[in-house]
């Protein structure tokens, strides 16, 4: 615990300085929220592996690094540097460089009427009432020190409102770029995404880096789906492997809303992906879909916390992991069914491929059911590339590398299949195909004679 205490001091300095100058520091409600959140963080410190929710993820590398908060953007990347992350036919692209919104790298030209797209810093000054109405109402910073830290340092991020009945087919792309800096830097992006009644929207939240260097991105997104709305949210992590990325997606679902959360983790050194939907209204449906692919020493932790708080709601969790080298994956799937949430239908599946002897996966379902008339199932598999399938392809003339790539693509495609057709899915599809093509280490022969015997299958019905 001593390291934690030591580090909190560093954050103290940063916070004292931040609280004075940050936008909205003169708004009493926001100032109080930041201070309360920071006090909470000081009280708990960073989590350790003794915390049940962090059992499989050691964040010592984060706690012992001294991160500093950036002020101003010293050198901005050129528009051409960002071209590689262009999402064709996006309704808008908001670009954040080292946590701060950069308007002349962003484009919001094709935003239809009824849709408000801006950044939080601006919204705080220009429309603080609208921010106050939702900001911090859903994300409970008492649950997680990283959320407390985010709330304490929250200043910029996306602020989007999709007006009632508006169906926005094109995705909104939120691009967070970490640039190379001399010192280790931290950012705390905070997004507020509101989708009003009967509206439809797609958000693509993406983390990338230009150059290397240690950095921490600790983001939090509050996504509010009002009655009968339909929302897709994509979380894409493809920073370099020195990056630490902790993200929390808190979804608030009202009556008969339909939300799909898709996570694609390909990059980052130490990644924690929290997805926390609350099915607050009756008849809500939530799909929680994900793919995580790691190699080298990457650590990719997926923490799902699905709360059924109303009757007749359904949730579907599907996460596929591919791990090579010394990579370590975690899938922690917690489902909580509240007492009144009768007729809940919750399903969870986690499938993993381990491509090397040193790769590791920890998969843990956790069901807490307080209602008596519910259907909850969960299952997890851990296996290798199937020797039978590999031989079948090779016996037809397909060489080993291509055969492996086809089998891995097929496995990854299970996640793609769950995404709606459209620009966002195409973008992700190309990204995954390119990744598999360029990461030859996945495709090297793995002499695992009894690969199939190691396959483990757990299926329980609770």
């Amino acid at each position, binding site marked *: 615990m001593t390291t934690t205490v030591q580090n909190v001091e560093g954050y103290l300095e940063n916070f004292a300085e931040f609280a004075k100058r940050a936008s909205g520091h003169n708004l009493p409600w926001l100032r109080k929220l930041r201070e309360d959140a920071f006090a909470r963080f000081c009280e708990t410190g960073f989590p350790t592996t003794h915390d049940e929710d962090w059992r499989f993820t050691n964040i010592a590398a984060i706690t012992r690094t001294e991160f500093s908060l950036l002020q101003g953007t010293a050198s901005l990347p050129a528009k051409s540097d960002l071209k590689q992350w262009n999402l064709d036919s996006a309704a808008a692209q908001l670009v954040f460089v080292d946590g701060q919104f950069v308007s002349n790298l962003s484009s919001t030209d094709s935003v239809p009427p009824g849709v408000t797209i801006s950044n939080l810093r601006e919204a705080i000054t220009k429309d603080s009432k609208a921010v106050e109405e939702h900001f911090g109402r859903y994300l409970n910073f008492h649950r997680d020190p990283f959320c407390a830290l985010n709330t304490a340092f929250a200043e910029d991020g996306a602020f989007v409102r999709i007006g009632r009945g508006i169906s926005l087919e094109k995705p909104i792309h939120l691009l967070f770029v970490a640039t190379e800096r001399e010192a280790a830097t931290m950012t705390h992006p905070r997004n507020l995404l509101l989708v009003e009644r009967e509206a439809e929207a797609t958000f693509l939240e993406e983390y990338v880096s230009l150059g290397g260097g240690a950095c921490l991105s600790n983001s939090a997104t509050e996504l509010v789906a009002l009655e009968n709305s339909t929302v897709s949210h994509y979380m894409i992590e493809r920073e370099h492997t020195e990056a630490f990325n902790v993200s929390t997606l808190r979804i608030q679902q009202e009556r008969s809303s339909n939300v799909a959360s898709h996570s694609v983790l390909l990059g980052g050194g130490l990644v924690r992906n929290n997805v926390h939907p609350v099915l607050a209204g009756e008849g809500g449906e939530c799909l929680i879909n994900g793919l995580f692919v790691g190699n080298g020493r990457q650590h990719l932790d997926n923490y799902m916390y699905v709360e059924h708080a109303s009757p007749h709601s359904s949730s579907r969790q599907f996460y596929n992991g591919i791990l090579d080298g010394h990579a370590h994956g975690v899938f922690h799937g917690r489902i909580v069914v509240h007492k009144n949430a009768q007729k809940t239908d919750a399903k969870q599946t986690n499938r993993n491929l381990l491509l090397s002897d040193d790769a590791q996966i920890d998969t843990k379902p956790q069901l807490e059911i307080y209602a008596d008339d519910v259907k909850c199932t969960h299952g997890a598999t851990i296996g290798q590339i199937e*020797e*039978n*399938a590999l*031989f*079948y*392809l*090779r*016996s*037809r*003339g*397909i*060489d*080993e590398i*291509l*055969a492996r790539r*086809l*089998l891995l*693509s*097929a*496995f990854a*495609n*299970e996640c793609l299949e769950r995404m709606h057709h459209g620009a966002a899915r195409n973008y992700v599809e190309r990204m995954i195909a390119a990744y598999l093509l360029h990461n030859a280490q996945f495709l090297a022969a793995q002499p695992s*004679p009894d690969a199939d015997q190691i396959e483990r299958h757990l299926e329980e019905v609770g």
Partner: protein
Amino acid sequence: MSLLEIRNLHVSVDGHEILKGINLAVNAGEVHSIMGPNGSGKSTLAQVLSRRDMYRVTSGEIRFNGKDLLAMKPEEAAAEGVFMAFQYPVEIPGISNTYFLRSALNAIRKYRGEEEIDAMDFLPVFREKLKLLEMDERLMNRSVNEGFSGGEKKRNEILQMAILDPKLAILDETDSGLDIDALRIVAQGVNAMRSPDRAMLVVTHYQRLLNYIVPDFVHVLVDGRIMRSGGPQLALELEAKGYASMEAEARQTVPASA
């Protein structure tokens, strides 16, 4: 020289010797049938020919088209013209049949220094073979063998064979589990492929298939050895008498084998 020459082939799996000295020569244009009781090593022979590496060759040699087959990887053997229809075809979720077939065909063409074939040129060839095997084109958009009936899987094997056009076709119990109609369709597909340039090795338990695909030679494999070889009438003889006498004979010859 024969297209396929197997000399004194010994093969082990997990330390157990399964093939105990096989000698066999197959010429282009010939159809040979390999019959034998359960566990006698028929599939082992088929899998070794298609170069599955879990089968360890402890001695002997195989020449295929003048080349050392045992030095080849499965994909090389396939590109050189070896094709095995699996006794148990594998289901591969997430890869469509059409895509798989075209990838396989193009891999083989590439190996042979031929140009890749695009989806447009592939389609007419593909449709013609589908028709021959009375297969529904819609099946082809589904994942490889996934959710196929037993008969559909076997027909799919023959379809692949028809498209890949091998020099040596090995059918491992393609007849088992087929009803008479499916058997007729499969046999028709195979017979359409008989040609002076191609050899076939038809592995089966039952004489029934050989009414449709009439072999030039029949070999009886018992306990890892070829106990008898003969013409098509040998299959009829076996049907009448069973393998019992040959199995007894095999037990007696054990000490004498090298």
